[in-house]
């Protein structure tokens, strides 16, 4: 007994649905993308060649401009407040990396005082943020 061949169904993606797919992707990315807006302070970062890329997801930035003003998460702080803020952040994430965005012209004693505050908060993983200098 011979069986008749089943009817072949053409397999093709209808191009009409491409529009829907692309827009769906666009809407998905637009809806899920979060832009982290941290303004920071206007600082002129020092230049260096040996800086490495910093994993932004585990970085908290500390900004200090040429006038010695300090911000963390866009909040202006006194030097005395830094330890308590960073202690709190360290409790939430012990792997925290502190990115120091410090003005190149700052006198070093200000930087040294800041490093002491970081050590008080046990925030010992530090990254001195720099501008990339092209190798000579």
């Amino acid at each position, binding site marked *: 007994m011979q069986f008749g061949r089943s009817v072949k169904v053409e397999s093709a993606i209808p*191009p009409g649905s*491409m*529009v829907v797919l*692309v*827009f769906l*992707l*666009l809407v998905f990315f637009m809806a899920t993308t979060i832009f982290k807006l941290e303004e920071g302070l206007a600082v002129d970062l*020092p*230049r*260096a*060649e*040996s*800086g*490495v*890329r*910093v994993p*932004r997801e585990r*970085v908290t930035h500390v900004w200090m401009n040429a006038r010695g003003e300090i911000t963390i998460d866009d909040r202006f702080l006194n030097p005395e407040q830094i330890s308590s803020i960073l202690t709190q952040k360290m409790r939430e994430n012990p792997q925290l*990396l502190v*990115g*120091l965005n*410090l*003005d*190149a*012209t*700052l*006198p*070093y*004693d*200000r*930087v*040294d005082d800041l*490093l002491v505050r*970081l*050590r*008080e908060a*046990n925030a*010992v*993983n*530090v*990254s*001195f*943020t*720099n*501008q*990339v200098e092209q190798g000579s």
Partner: protein
Amino acid sequence: MPKIKRPSNPPPEISQASTADIAFLLLIFFISTTVFEQEFGMQVVLPGLGGKATKVRPENVLKIRAAADGTIFVGDAPVALRNVEGMVETRLAENDQLIISIETDSDAAYERMIDVLDEVKAAGAPRFSIKRYRG
């Protein structure tokens, strides 16, 4: 007089076939023009405040001082910044236990310390310390 029949015009509409092209064009444009901001930094691990101080033999320490006037001293000798990397490499080749102590004057600019740290890192020094110069 016979009536002239108007040709029946189809209602005007925008062709939807090109919508996919426009959407892809937009996607490709944004993919190719988007620049993700990257951050570069020199990572160091600071000593904890409760840590024990360890004694280091003086011959295993190389002091590099960044003075307020921009002069760099390796030991007691003033050197040009561009020569620091080579000097550190040479000393490291002689002594693999070497610890580089970067000391910066209180009133020196922060970038002087970064300049020295950059040279020390470029020389591949595995151990170094950062401190304020206290005379």
